[in-house]
């Protein structure tokens, strides 16, 4: 069966510091991968998605970037965090099925102080 992991679970960082969040998927190959951000009371916003190694699409202009160095690894990064980067970050993978459903990881709670 497939599982998705996110690391770390929580993170507190000062403004201006770098960021690296990791997402890994097990039990599937060449998945489509996604990063979402969930801000309080604002639902989920798609940040990036990837259809393969080295292929990244950005949905919104922002202070963040994403990379996919390996087939089942998706990384969210920033060189200098802003207060507005605080939120709950969720990684997801898409099952290649008639429904194209997405499955989510446990999330990373990021607080920028």
């Amino acid at each position, binding site marked *: 069966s497939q599982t998705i992991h996110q690391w770390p679970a929580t993170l507190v960082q000062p403004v201006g510091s770098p960021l690296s969040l990791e997402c890994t998927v097990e039990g599937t190959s060449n998945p*489509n991968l*996604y990063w979402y951000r969930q801000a309080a*009371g*604002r*639902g*989920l916003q*798609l940040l990036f*998605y990837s*259809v393969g190694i080295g292929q990244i*699409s950005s*949905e919104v202009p922002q202070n963040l970037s994403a990379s996919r160095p390996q087939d089942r690894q998706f990384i969210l990064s920033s060189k200098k965090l802003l207060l507005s980067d605080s939120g709950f970050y*969720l990684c*997801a993978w*898409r099952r290649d099925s*008639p*429904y*194209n*459903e*997405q*499955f*989510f*990881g*446990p*999330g990373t*709670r990021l607080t920028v102080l």
Partner: protein
Amino acid sequence: AQSVTQPDIHITVSEGASLELRCNYSYGATPYLFWYVQSPGQGLQLLLKYFSGDTLVQGIKGFEAEFKRSQSSFNLRKPSVHWSDAAEYFCAVASSGAGSYQLTFGKGTKLSVIP
């Protein structure tokens, strides 16, 4: 562009009562529709999904949803709510583009359950 509206921000029901959470979508083609549930501090769990076929779909935890094309709705229902159903519920529509399928979410409905 696709969009999803969940008109109820917060709903409170008594344990054992029935539940209906509303979802309206806007999408030009036949939509892929989903309901997810999120407990505090957790990721999202898929409750059920719809693409085609029977318009009444069954999901996990005793939930069901009905697709009504004429009303652009995909409401979630449960006949008898349990205290453990207290959580936030998200409706989503998937659209295709650039070789992938992207989810657009509603803003969520928080469900509180009174003992």
